[in-house]
């Protein structure tokens, strides 16, 4: 692999670098994900994994019908996921639209991170000025994590310089806030593109790379996550900087979540098994994690009557 001597900014230089990345063996990645997902997790490890997964959740509500009341209720749940059991840890962050960031911040105080989606989420179809304004708004409202979307149209057209320039500009607008870059892998079509977009985002200054907005039919999948985990691992080997990964959308069960934890350990390594470097973007996942936790605590299966309706 080449070394990154100085920041690549032009489309030509980026193309030269990104297209020299080794291609992804799609069948191999799928097989690898399937093989790792059959691993049996024993009870003690499962209890640990469930608590870790809860601590990794970015509890999300990104709907047009979000109200201040709904955001506050979600924040209360993020702080104390299971009011009947004080041993349940808080989640990592709440994730809301930018205009709800102030309400979320007021609800969670400094106890949790507040992530806001910005840059004309979910399509990203707006001018750079509008996107930057969106980011500054969210940061001013109290968000300390910004989830931006890349311009998939520009990426697919091969205009890597433009995508890079936008990420760099958003990163600058973030100030001290962490930047998560959403690749929207469901629209990138190939795993080769996922690998290229991951590198592009990391080199442009992303603190996290995130799979999806959750607004297109294909969201996070295990093979895509493997490719992104390989990218952050290789980037660490090259630069000494650890970038985080956030699969989002479509992860609904504890079983799925634990499979992802296995993927992290086997692909990127144990250093990534922390909420600082891995998050789940999810809304319904938390309830299933709580049900499994109740099942382990009480010895009998629990049901949806015992968790909140979100």
């Amino acid at each position: 692999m080449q070394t990154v001597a100085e920041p690549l900014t032009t489309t030509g230089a980026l193309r030269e670098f990104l297209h020299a990345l080794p291609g992804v063996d799609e069948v191999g990645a799928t097989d690898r994900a399937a093989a790792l997902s059959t691993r049996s997790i024993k009870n003690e490890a499962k209890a640990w994994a469930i608590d870790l997964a809860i601590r990794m959740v970015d509890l999300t509500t990104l709907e047009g019908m979000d109200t201040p009341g709904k955001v506050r209720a979600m924040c209360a749940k993020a702080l104390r996921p299971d009011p009947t059991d004080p041993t349940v840890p808080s989640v990592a962050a709440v994730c809301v639209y930018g205009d709800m960031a102030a309400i979320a911040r007021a609800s969670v105080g400094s106890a949790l991170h507040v992530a806001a989606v910005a840059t004309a989420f979910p399509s990203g179809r707006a001018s750079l000025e509008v996107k930057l304004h969106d980011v500054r708004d969210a940061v001013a409202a109290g968000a300390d994590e910004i989830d931006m979307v890349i311009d998939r149209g520009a990426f697919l057209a091969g205009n890597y310089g433009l995508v890079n320039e936008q990420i760099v500009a958003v990163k600058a607008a973030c100030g001290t806030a962490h930047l998560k870059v959403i690749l929207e892998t469901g629209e990138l079509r190939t795993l080769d593109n996922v690998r290229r977009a991951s590198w592009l985002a990391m080199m442009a200054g992303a603190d996290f790379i995130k799979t999806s907005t959750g607004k297109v039919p294909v969201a996070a999948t295990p093979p895509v996550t493997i490719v992104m985990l390989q990218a952050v691992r290789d980037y660490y080997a090259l630069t000494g900087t650890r970038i985080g990964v956030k699969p989002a959308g479509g992860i609904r069960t504890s079983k799925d979540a634990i499979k992802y934890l296995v993927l992290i350990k086997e692909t990127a390594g144990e250093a990534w098994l922390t909420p600082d470097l891995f998050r789940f973007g999810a809304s319904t996942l938390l309830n299933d994690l709580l049900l499994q936790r109740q099942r382990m605590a009480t010895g009998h299966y629990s049901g949806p009557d015992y968790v909140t309706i979100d």
Partner: protein
Amino acid sequence: MNDRVEVRKTYKLFIGGAFPRSESGRTYEVHDTDDKFLANAAKASRKDGRDAVLAARKGFAAWSSATAYNRGQVLYRVAEVMEGRREQFITDVQAAEGLGDKKSARVVDSAIDRLVWYAGWADKYAQVLGNTNPVAGPYFNFTIPEPTGVVAAVAPQDSSLLGLVSVIAPIVVTGNALIVIASTKCPIPAITLTEVLATADVPNGVINVLTGDPAEITPWLASHGDVNAIDLTGVTSQDLAKQLEIEAAGTVKRVRRPAQPNWLTTPDLGRLASFVEIKTVWHPIGA
């Protein structure tokens, strides 16, 4: 003439409208009353029980909101399809229970008639179990029966078809979703019934049929937080019945105790009334 290769059968479970193998991969041999091998049946594990509860909860949403008329029609349709498979059921019951030709035909006919009987009750039981209550105030006061939710039932061990149908029908006709564990010794009539259910407009997940050992699966269902009631009709061991009743108390489930009635006699509304919640509503009278 007998030079055909024998078609050996390994039956599966019926969960959520599909026919999965047991998650455990286990099967057990089913023999007739003369100890002749009949087929292999799936031996359900507690994980299958849990999957069935998930399927039933999904099925409950649509089934409990269907109209009473529609539920009656669907149950009648099950009876229709059973009538079309009458000969097969007679053969199954004969092998399972060791009855003669006439007796097994009578049992199968009674099972079909039992379904029709309960199907007829679909839009009538509410009038019998419910009421408008006279109250001393400016209110209408109604009492109406509503479905309990997800019900787990143990089918009778000896009456493999008629007993099974007599347990299933009153539970589903009132809008509940059901997980039933078929007779361990003679599950084949129940398995044939699943093939009927799959083709008879019963929404997926409303009736889930497991085969295997009730002693293995039922404790998990009795303590399950998402099961609302449990019907122990076919539990033969007093100790197990007691244990299940204790487990069910943890989540305040309705429990119907073991029973061995004469299945051939026409039932009363007892079973229908067992798995409904009686709700009373006060409604102000407008001026």
